[in-house]
C-alpha cells in the first residue's frame, strides 16, 4: 500500500475531517442539553480551522470570509442563542434518554461506510488531495439526519439540523474551495434566521403541548385516554 506524501496543511485538513466526524458521533451520543450545545460549538471550531487552513493553503481568499462567518455564527451566535433558549426554557439539566444508544452508534458507523461507497465514483471527479473528505462530509450530513430521527426533544433536533448544514459547508469547502460567495452568504443568513425562528417555535411548541418532546405531536387528542 503506498502513501503518497501530502503537504502538512493537507494532512491537517484530513485530521480535522476525521475530528469533525468524531464530533458528529459525539453529538449523537451526547444526552445533556448543555453538553450538546458545547459539542456543536466545538464542531464549529473544527470547521473554522479547516476553512482557514484551506483558505491559506489554496490562496482562495474569499474562504476567509466564510471562515469568519463560521466563527461568528456557528461557534458563537447559534450556540449562545440555543444556550439562552435552554436556560429560559429551564431544560439545562434535562437528560434525554436515547433509546438503544449503542444501536444508534452502530447505525452511524454503517452510514459512514454507506456514504463512502456512495461517494467512490464522485471523488474521481475532483483533483484535490483532500477529495476523500467528501465521504466524511456526506457522513456528517447523514448522521445529522439520523440525529433528527432518533431524538425527541426539539432542541436536539435543531442541533442535528445545524450539523447537517455543517456537513454541507465542509463538503463545499474541501472539495471545491467553497460555494460562490452569494450562495454562502445566503446559506449563512438562512441558518441565522432559522436559529431565531426555531427559538420562537420552541416557545410555541411548549405553550401548545406543554413539553418540548415532539412525540406528543403524534397524538390527536388533547387528553390522555
Amino acid at each position, binding site marked *: *500500500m503506498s*502513501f*503518497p*506524501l*501530502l503537504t*502538512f496543511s493537507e*494532512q*491537517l485538513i*484530513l*485530521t480535522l*475531517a*476525521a*475530528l469533525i*466526524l*468524531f464530533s458528529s*458521533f459525539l453529538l449523537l*451520543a451526547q444526552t445533556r442539553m448543555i453538553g450538546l450545545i458545547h459539542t456543536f460549538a466545538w464542531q464549529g471550531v473544527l470547521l473554522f480551522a479547516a476553512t482557514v487552513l484551506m483558505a491559506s493553503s489554496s490562496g482562495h481568499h474569499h474562504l476567509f470570509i466564510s471562515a469568519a462567518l463560521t466563527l461568528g455564527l456557528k461557534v458563537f451566535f447559534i450556540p449562545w442563542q440555543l444556550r439562552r433558549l435552554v436556560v429560559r426554557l429551564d431544560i439545562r439539566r434535562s437528560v434525554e434518554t436515547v433509546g438503544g*444508544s*449503542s444501536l444508534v*452508534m452502530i447505525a452511524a*458507523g454503517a452510514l*459512514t*461506510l454507506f456514504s*463512502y461507497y456512495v461517494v467512490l465514483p464522485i471523488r474521481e471527479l475532483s483533483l484535490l488531495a483532500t477529495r*476523500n*473528505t467528501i*465521504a*466524511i462530509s456526506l457522513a456528517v450530513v447523514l448522521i445529522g439526519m439520523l440525529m433528527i430521527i432518533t431524538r425527541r426533544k426539539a432542541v436536539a433536533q435543531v442541533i442535528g439540523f445545524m450539523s447537517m448544514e455543517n456537513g454541507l459547508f465542509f463538503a463545499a469547502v474541501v472539495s471545491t474551495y467553497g460555494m460562490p460567495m452569494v450562495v454562502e452568504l445566503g446559506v449563512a443568513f438562512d441558518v441565522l434566521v432559522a436559529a431565531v425562528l426555531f427559538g420562537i417555535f420552541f416557545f410555541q411548541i411548549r405553550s401548545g403541548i406543554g413539553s418540548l418532546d415532539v412525540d406528543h405531536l403524534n397524538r390527536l387528542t388533547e387528553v390522555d385516554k
Partner: protein
Amino acid sequence: MNGWLLALLQTGLMIAAAPLLSGWVKWCKCKFQNRQGAAPWQTYRDLGKLFRKEIVVAANASTIFRIAPYIVFSVTALACSVIPLVAPNLPTSALADAIVLVGFFALGRFFLALAGMDIGTAFGGMGSSREMTISSLAEPAMLLAIFTLAMSVSSTNLSTMISALLQRPFQLYPSFIFAAMGLVLVAVAETGRIPVDNPATHLELTMVHEAMILEYCGRHLALMEWAAMIKLLLYGVLLVNLFVPWGMATSLTPPDLLVAALLLLIKLMLLGFVLAAAESGLAKMRLFRVPQLLGLAFILSLLGMLSHVILEVR
C-alpha cells in the same frame, strides 16, 4: 545468536522492571495528593515481603486455585517476549502477532476469573463476573484498534508494524490518533486503573481486580500482583512503541540500544506521570457507566478504521 540473547535480556528486563513503573506511578500520585510517598522501589520490598510469607489456602480450594497464580504469571511473562521493547525485528517477535497477544491476555484473565470463583466467596464471584463483563467489552475495541494499525502497515506482527512505521516519513495519520485514543481507554480498563477500577483499594464493594485475588496470600498473591504490574508495563510499552516509536534502535549495536533504552525510559516515565495525573484528577466511575466508556473506546477504534479506509487509502 545476538538477537536471541537480546530478546531474552529484554524479556527479563521487562519482568524485572515492571514493579518500578507501578512504584513510579504510585510515587507520582502521592506527590499529586501532597503526600510524602514511598520511594518508587517500595513495590520490590512489598513483593519480597509477600514472597517470604507463608501460604494459607482455603480448605475447599481446588487445584485451579493453586496453579492459577503460576499460569497467570507465566502467560504475562510470555507476552513480554512478544512485545518489542528497545528494538524491533528480534527473533522472538516471530513467535506471535498482536492477535496472539490479545489471546495471551485472555488466557491469563480466564484463569484469574476461575481462581476468583474457585473458593466460592461472594466477593470473588462478583469480581470475576465484573472482570469478564469489562473485558468482553474491551477486547473488541482493542482488536479493532490493532486492526486499524495492521491495515495501514499490512501486517499483524507487532515488530513488523513498528519497523514499518519507523521507516516511513513522519505524517499525521487521523486513524492512528483515533486508534491511540481507543487503545488508551482499553488499557485503562484492562489494567484496572481509576475510572474503571481503583488499584489502591483492598476492601471496597466496587473493586474488580482486588476482589478476585482477595483469597490469595503469600507467594501466590505476590505472583498475581507482579503479573498485574507486568500487564501495566506491557500496555505502556505497547502504547509507547506503537504510537511514538521514534528513537527505537534500528540496528543491534550497543550505542543504539542504549539510546533507545534511555528514550523508552523517558517515554514510560512521562506516560506514568500522565497516568498518575489522570488518576488523581478523575473519580471512579459507577460500574454501570463503564460500558459507556468502553463503547466510546469501540467507537474511537471504529472511527480510526473508517478514517483509514476513507481518508488514507487512495
